[in-house]
């Protein structure tokens, strides 16, 4: 690789890492910390992406005072030709709009979380997983069939809020995404260390006992789903803004199964583990992507399947040899705790 290629590769990787870190922190709070197997993450990610995309051009016209009779979704391209030059000339306006879109993304995620959590918090693990898996499919059906949302199968473009950076657009966009991801990481790291976070972990470890200690399990699980979904919504909106367009194709492989693999790899219950797992996984995925065509002559199948095969293999290896992930939850990192003393040795204080 030349230096330029290395830089491009790294920036690409960091963009993907940022998005997945946000999603995975949301999943880790639900599955790793609270014990809610959310197999419907894609619902909140797609909710954040589609609803933000749907509203973005409309809001931009309204807020930037662009007068046009064109429909922001049907005549999307023409309308954005009016909007984008204004945004390109004003970084501060663009950033303001970005902040607004992220709030919308988060709120959309929360809405999706609310939709899925209402029945879900009352179910136990396996039923919950199946219900959420099914919920995850809803939005693509709506997105494909209902054009005013994001223009049906062809999708729609979003205002280019990174246009002001010119040829450095992707660098700046990546930097901003990384910044958002790091802020969320710090926030989550603080949250799990509060007494609130402690109750979430208690519920994960033993639901009945938590109930016997007067905890309102339903409310806590609902909170975890909501916070996780808000993060997924923000990630969805960010990704849509970064890519500049959405189509109703956010699928459960990319936005449910991959996040699960990443937190499995990194270590459930730990935010640092989540970050490490995300970085390792995204890097591997990108490396395979980058080099896979060199292997084409030696493989008896189409190389497009190489990612799936290798990542599948990786998952099996993790589950066999290190089911707790790369980083264990923090207590276990205390060096060499002595084996528990037999009952007879416990001395009264």
């Amino acid at each position, binding site marked *: 690789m030349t230096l330029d290629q290395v830089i491009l590769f790294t920036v690409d990787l960091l963009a993907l890492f940022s998005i997945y870190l946000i999603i995975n922190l949301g999943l880790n709070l639900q599955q790793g910390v609270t014990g809610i197997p959310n197999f419907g993450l894609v619902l909140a990610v797609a909710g954040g992406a589609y609803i933000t995309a749907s509203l973005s051009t409309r809001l931009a016209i309204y807020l930037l005072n662009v007068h046009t009779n064109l429909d922001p979704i049907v005549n999307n391209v023409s309308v954005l030709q009016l909007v984008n030059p204004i945004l390109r000339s004003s970084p501060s306006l663009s950033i303001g709009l970005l902040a607004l879109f992220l709030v919308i993304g988060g709120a959309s995620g929360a809405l999706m979380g609310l939709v899925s959590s209402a029945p879900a918090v009352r179910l136990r693990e396996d039923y919950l997983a199946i219900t959420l898996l099914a919920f995850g499919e809803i939005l693509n059906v709506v997105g494909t069939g209902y054009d005013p949302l994001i223009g049906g199968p062809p999708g729609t473009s979003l205002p280019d809020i990174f246009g002001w950076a010119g040829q450095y657009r992707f660098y700046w966009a990546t930097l901003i995404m990384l910044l958002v991801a790091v802020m969320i990481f710090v926030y989550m790291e603080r949250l799990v260390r509060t007494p609130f976070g402690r109750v979430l972990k208690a519920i994960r470890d033993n639901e009945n006992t938590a109930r*016997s200690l*007067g905890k309102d399990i339903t409310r806590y699980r609902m909170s975890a789903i909501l916070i996780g979904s808000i993060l997924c919504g923000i990630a969805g909106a960010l990704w849509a803004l970064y890519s500049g367009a959405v189509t109703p194709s956010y699928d459960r492989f990319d936005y449910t199964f991959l996040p699960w693999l990443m937190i499995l790899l990194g270590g459930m219950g730990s935010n640092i583990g989540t970050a490490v797992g995300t970085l390792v996984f995204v890097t591997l995925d990108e490396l395979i992507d980058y080099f896979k065509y060199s292997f084409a002559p030696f493989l008896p199948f189409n190389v497009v399947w190489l990612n799936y095969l290798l990542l599948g293999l990786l998952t099996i290896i993790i589950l066999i040899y290190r089911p707790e992930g790369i980083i264990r939850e923090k207590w276990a990192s205390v060096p060499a*705790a002595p084996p528990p003393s037999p009952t007879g040795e416990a001395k009264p204080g």
Partner: protein
Amino acid sequence: MASLLSVEEVAASFGKLRALDGVTLSVEEESVTLLIGPNGSGKTTLVNVITGFQKPDGGHIYYGGKEITRWSPQRVYRAGIARTFQVPSLFSKLTTIQNLLVADKAHPGESFLKSHLRRLWVKHEKERVEKASKILQTLGLTEQSDKPASVLSGGQMKLTELGRALMSDAKLYLLDEPISGVNPTLALEIFARIVSLRKQFGVTFFIIEHRLDIALRYVDYVNVMASGKLVAAGTPTQIVSDPKVIEAYLAR
């Protein structure tokens, strides 16, 4: 003394099995009351029904004069009744002291919104940590304080459960076999501690325990159950010489 908890004609069943068949008993305020009976006589079921973990088929439960029949576990706990489980059920990935800290009826930091403002809860947290450390010390668990509950021995787990119950500031403690798996010296110490807590804070203990050699020395009253029914009740001396009790244990 007035009765703090009274159970009247409580019945409960698992399918066709009558686990509780019209049990009536009461627990005097500030007493240490023992509940004994052969395995399968319904002792744990009774505790489950009182604490809302199982719905009774009939009967009434009164606590401090108020009817609490069919209340949810949360509500029962908040009303001032704490319980432990026969099989230790700790939060395995939390440390021992964290296990104790979760037992808090009104911790401002446990609310999502308030958890963001440290100053709203940090003082409360400090007090609770102090209290928890003291309890751990009494139970001989100071060294285990920062270890995850999953590495504790069976006896230490039982003690942690007891400690967690003691954190609750409850008026009534329902302990399901608090000293099973605990070594005799410590078991004696626990019962001595229970008696002194009762005097110190005016709290009440209702204890299921099989190890009568230890328990009988410390308790005020004993209730004996067999096949889902109360067969005898009285002071320890009355109970050990009661032919019905001997029959209940041997007839099975």
